[in-house]
């Protein structure tokens, strides 16, 4: 029996610049952190030769090509596992459409677990790249590469997507005081909307030419954000998040909607400096940045939405149990 644990992530600035169609022309950058919300993948040899996969539904099949879950199917094919395996997934938050990078966390955690199942070791860089291959090349999901790297490496990082295709993960080291301060200025509200990111991201992917200047601005915002973060200039960070959100909304029509606009407006009225919808947009979680003094007012203004507590973490995907 093997259990892998893989974190979800919060992305602050630069989302959308991790698409290959963009970063082949101009370096893409994102600044994100893993958080203490995890997906766990349990993997075990099955007594009979069948395959059982359990997530929001349960599949019991005889061969990998009968599996409906596209990631599990592709991963088993990739790893050349044909029979006699049981895979169970359990997550700390709803598994899809939350904007916390959960589908890539799932892929990374599954691949990590399957390597361990076959007594193979894979390092974080190879794990992230293999997850990208499965999700982007094999399945054809219209997604970028930031989530796979965030899940495999863990921690607060600037991830750079270079024009030659090389991807670099550069940790942002913060003193305990600034790290605690940054977390203390953030709140995460659940919109209650679960959406499929694919239509939003497909449009965004097709828009890359048209929105090239916005994407360049988003990428260039990352070093500026990092600089202010290292200094602990929280008000400025809130303003940069706001700017990031205004540009991000330009990328695709579904990123915001009337409910999200209303929530964001209420937060600003109650004293927030800025924020953003995490991930592709259209639903999931809304991140709000404000002074700690205004948090009670913002909570009150958004009281109908579930507030979710979280902490930044350092660890990427790990095998936490093996026997």
């Amino acid at each position, binding site marked *: 029996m093997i259990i892998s644990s893989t974190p979800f992530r919060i992305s602050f600035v630069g989302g959308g610049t991790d698409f290959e169609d963009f970063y082949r022309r101009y370096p893409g950058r994102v600044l994100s952190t893993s958080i203490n919300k995890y997906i766990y993948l349990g993997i075990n040899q099955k007594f009979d030769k069948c395959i059982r996969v359990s997530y929001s539904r349960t599949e019991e099949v005889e061969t990998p090509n009968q599996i409906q879950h596209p990631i599990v199917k592709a991963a088993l094919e990739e790893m050349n596992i044909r029979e006699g395996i049981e895979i169970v997934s359990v997550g700390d938050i709803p598994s899809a459409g939350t904007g916390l990078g959960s589908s890539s966390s799932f892929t990374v955690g599954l691949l990590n677990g399957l390597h361990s199942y076959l007594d193979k070791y894979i390092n974080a860089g190879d794990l992230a790249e293999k997850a990208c291959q499965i999700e982007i090349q094999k399945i054809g999901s219209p997604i970028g590469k930031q989530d796979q790297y965030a899940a495999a490496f*863990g921690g607060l990082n600037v991830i750079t997507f270079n024009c030659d295709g090389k991807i670099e993960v550069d940790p942002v080291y913060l003193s305990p005081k600034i790290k605690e301060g940054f977390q203390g200025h953030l709140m995460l509200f659940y919109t209650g909307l679960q959406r499929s990111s694919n239509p939003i991201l497909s449009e965004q992917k097709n828009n890359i030419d048209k929105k090239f200047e916005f994407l360049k601005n988003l990428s260039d915002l990352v070093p500026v954000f990092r600089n202010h973060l290292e200094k602990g200039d929280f008000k400025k960070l809130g303003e940069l998040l706001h700017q990031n959100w205004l540009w991000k909304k330009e990328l695709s029509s579904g990123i915001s909607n009337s409910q999200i606009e209303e929530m964001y407006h209420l937060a600003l009225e109650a004293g927030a400096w800025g924020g953003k919808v995490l991930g592709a947009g259209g639903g999931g979680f809304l991140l709000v940045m404000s002074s700690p003094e205004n948090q009670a007012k913002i909570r009150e203004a958004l009281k109908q939405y579930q507030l979710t507590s979280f902490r930044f973490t350092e660890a990427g995907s790990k095998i936490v149990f093996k026997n």
Partner: protein
Amino acid sequence: MEDYIKSFLTELNAEINKVSWKEIAFGIKILQTAYEYDGKIFAIGNGGSAAIASHFSNDLNKTVFGQKGEKQTKRFQVICLADNTATLTAWANDVGFEDIFSEQLKNFAQEKDVLIAISSSGNSPNIIKAVNTAKDLHLSVIGMVGFDGGQLLSLADAKIHVPSKKYEIIESAHDSICHLVTTHFKEAIK
């Protein structure tokens, strides 16, 4: 005498300032990762470095959470492999001195664990053997070295290098860096 004393302190200060802050920060990240997943941390060294390994183990296991006492249920899990005389002498006597740390690692180590290897020369055979075992088991390695760093400098993931040629300076600097890391976790872990 004043000059004599001050020259040591000045030299120590100069050498400790040559250590890369990013490598120390990376070492902290590796330890934090182990903490989050309840990974074990092993510390090894010979002579003065064995004492540093033992001292640092105590600081991570107890000092970091000292004031919180029993309330702190999640803790570092550090094992100093230089502390158990019976096991050390058993391996040394029956198999060889080179194996004293490497063989102990094989009892406990798992993929998510960390090895802190302290060796001023960076070349002590029993340290290098343990680091190679740790690499085979896919542990992260924090190396604390002096002189030119020796083999350990290239093998370690986090490379904490005090480039002095004097043992007293190197070991003093290693101890100070361990205390810096202890102070960090005292503040960072809530």
